[in-house]
């Protein structure tokens, strides 16, 4: 079992690497061929140099740290709030109806659509960005967790009641672990949405002082027509996405629901 698991993940990395290399090679061929001007389609080397420069100057690290701090805050607030709201909804029919209705209204609403309103309410500081992140993340998270709670086999709850668990213990020790596969997919969707919301908001809000985040960093390069700099910023976003997916989410999944045979 362990062996095949290891070999299959090794296999996965190998195919990943293969296609990444193919894409990079194609990119370089197109860039070198001169079909497009270098200012629009820079070669990999130029992009790498731009990345190196912004790392050495510390600029991209600063902006990345700023963005990561914001997204983590927004994400944690959303996760805790979503668990709390879903748990309350699981215990109360009236409240369940309310949450259901609110989610139906708010879920299809893109965070960016709310942006003007949020600026009026909260200004153009980090609070507004947090509000947009929370809005983007919390609804899919709530919907997923509530679906997960509903999908739980009633036997687990009944066994829990039989063992004398109180409401809080039922939620903490039965509902949440039993719906973890759903919680996890909620977290994945939430994470992707949080990134989008964050980068768009940063582009629109601009920098407060020096810090504007990765979104602002990319947007700023436009002023100087610094295409390699834009790609450097995009590269960092992609890299973070892959690291979070493969090393955080996938690793967590491996240690929980996969180990428990729940998926």
């Amino acid at each position, binding site marked *: 079992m362990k062996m095949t698991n290891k070999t299959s993940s090794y296999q996965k990395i190998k195919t990943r690497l293969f296609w990444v290399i193919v894409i990079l090679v194609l990119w370089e061929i197109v860039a070198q061929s001169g079909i497009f001007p270098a200012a629009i389609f820079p070669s990999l080397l130029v992009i790498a140099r731009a990345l190196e420069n912004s790392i050495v100057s510390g600029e991209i690290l600063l902006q990345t740290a700023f963005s990561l701090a914001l997204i983590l805050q927004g994400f944690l607030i959303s996760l805790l709030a979503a668990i709390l709201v879903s748990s309350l909804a699981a215990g109360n029919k009236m409240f369940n109806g309310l949450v259901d209705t609110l989610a139906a209204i708010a879920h299809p609403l893109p965070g960016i659509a709310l942006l003007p309103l949020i600026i009026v309410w909260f200004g153009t500081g980090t609070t507004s960005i947090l509000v947009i992140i929370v809005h983007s993340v919390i609804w899919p998270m709530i919907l997923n967790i509530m679906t997960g709670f509903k999908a739980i*086999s009633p*036997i*687990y709850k*009944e*066994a829990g*009641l*039989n*063992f*004398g*668990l109180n409401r809080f*213990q039922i939620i903490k*020790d*039965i509902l949440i*672990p*039993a719906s*973890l596969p759903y919680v996890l997919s909620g977290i994945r969707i939430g994470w992707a949405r949080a990134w989008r919301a964050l980068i768009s908001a940063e582009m629109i809000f601009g920098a407060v002082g020096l810090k504007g985040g990765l979104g602002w960093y990319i947007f700023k390069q436009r002023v100087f027509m610094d295409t390699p700099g834009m790609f450097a910023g995009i590269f960092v976003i992609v890299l973070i996405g892959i690291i979070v997916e493969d090393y955080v989410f996938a690793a967590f999944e491996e240690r*929980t629901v996969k*180990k*428990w*045979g*729940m998926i």
Partner: protein
Amino acid sequence: MGNDLKQQEENLIDRTVIICLKSVSKYYRRSQETLRVLDHIDLDIYQGEILALLGPSGCGKTTLLRQIAGFDHRESGSLLMDGHEVVQPEVKRIMIFQDFNQLFPWKTVIQNVVYPLQVNRVGESDTANREIALEYLKLVELTGFEDSYPHQLSGGMKQKAAMARALALKPKVLLMDEPFGSLDALTRIALQNLLLKVWQETGVTIIFVTHDIQEAVILSDRIAVMGRETAGIKKVIPNLLDRPRVVGEAGYSEIYGHVYSLMDINPTK
């Protein structure tokens, strides 16, 4: 021998009633009609006995067992345990389901047993609870699988673990809903023998739902036969065969035949 039987029967009558059902009714309402699954059921359950609830599929065995467990609301009647009305599930009556997936998949076997002990503060420390859990896993012959996750166990092993988890809480009554119903014949016999061993060692009262006449005869002290038309218990048959019981031994076929004749098995229809 005849005297012996009579003596045993009197002993049975003398025994203390642990659970007493008086005129218990449970209906399910459907769009048009009301389904009277349990209609004014009277039943006494004696301390320390194994009572088999036997009947065809859909006759209301699970419904009755869930009533005794305290999971469902009832239309009318009273259900007393030690003189107290049963209104909710309690640790002194533990249910074991037919479904193999009743262990918590996110806990190892031993964690599954330890967790209810912690919740109920059975042992004084986590180490004490672990000791208790190990002892009961040994009782059900699961030593060596403490750290396995439920999905790594066979169906029979899962049911054993569920038994250990229930017994570790020292319930007065074990409610078992066709726990061996989905097992192959050999494993089922092994688990029946294990259950009898555990019963003899712990003295727990067992209400055992089954639709298998042989299983009822091998295990139980009394067999409550439920019928589909009667919406309740047709007859309670005492089963005083000597233990250990073997299929086909003296007395077995009489009692089997008696139960069979009550089961409305009508080949012409």
